[in-house]
């Protein structure tokens, strides 16, 4: 029995909807990848139960990260893209002061939950030494949606 129609025409899948979806996915990931906070160092922030905290305004603040090591010790400080050794605390004061004079009003302090208070207190005092009475924001882990 002879087949109907043109025997030379091949059956092709319609690719257009798949390309549309793929482009949408690409646009999504391009947009989302811009909101990654490059100032934040990866660490386990404190997560107190039933925390009554606010949402920090990342636009008006300078982020100070205390980089954790094992057993509550620290490797150094990362602030505004600069890595500062622990024995160069005056550099932290200088950078924070520069940022505060440049328009920042807050200092966001990020420290690991296992870090000893001895180190955190030294950083707080260095930020205080920068002057200009900044508002300190003690950053904690937010509620998971």
């Amino acid at each position, binding site marked *: 029995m002879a087949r109907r129609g043109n025997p030379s025409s091949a059956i092709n899948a319609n690719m257009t909807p798949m390309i549309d979806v*793929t482009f949408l996915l690409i646009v999504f*990931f391009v947009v989302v990848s811009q909101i990654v906070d490059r100032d934040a160092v990866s660490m386990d*922030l404190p997560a107190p139960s*039933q*925390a009554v905290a606010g*949402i920090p305004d990342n636009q008006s603040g300078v982020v100070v990260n205390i980089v954790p090591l094992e057993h509550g010790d620290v490797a150094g400080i990362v602030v505004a893209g600069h890595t500062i050794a622990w024995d160069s605390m005056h550099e932290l004061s200088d950078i924070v002061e520069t940022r505060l004079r440049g328009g920042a009003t807050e200092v966001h302090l990020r420290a690991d939950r296992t870090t000893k208070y001895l180190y955190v207190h030294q950083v*707080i005092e260095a930020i205080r030494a920068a002057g200009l009475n900044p*508002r300190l924001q*003690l950053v904690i882990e937010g509620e998971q949606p």
Partner: protein
Amino acid sequence: MIDVVFLLLIYFMVATEFKTAEESFPMDLPLRDYRQTIQLDSEPLVIFVESAGDKKSDLRIRLDGPWDTVSSIEELVLFLQSNKAGRFGASGLFTETHPILIRPTKETRWGHTIAAYNAAVRAKYVNITLDEPS
């Protein structure tokens, strides 16, 4: 072209890392002038915080003064709430602006310090300070 598009898609899927949600406690950092002696209106309530281990519950709390022993964060919140003036009748000893001084040791973990800070915030006190390590 579709090959390149798929490559781009895979690149962005792998390279994207989502920012975790963060919250924060605001704390003022007034400049200290050691030449001046500040007279406090009332004696601050000092809360000693000590870590006994890594877990959330491994912290020891002690109150400076003739207060009952507080053994957990929840008990600390209850103590602060029940002794607050204007709440739970007229028996409150501390006003909302009463200075609360949190004094961890040098070895206290930051997570435990923040837990004590959060307890005072939960009890709606507004004058909370982190003291020098004891």
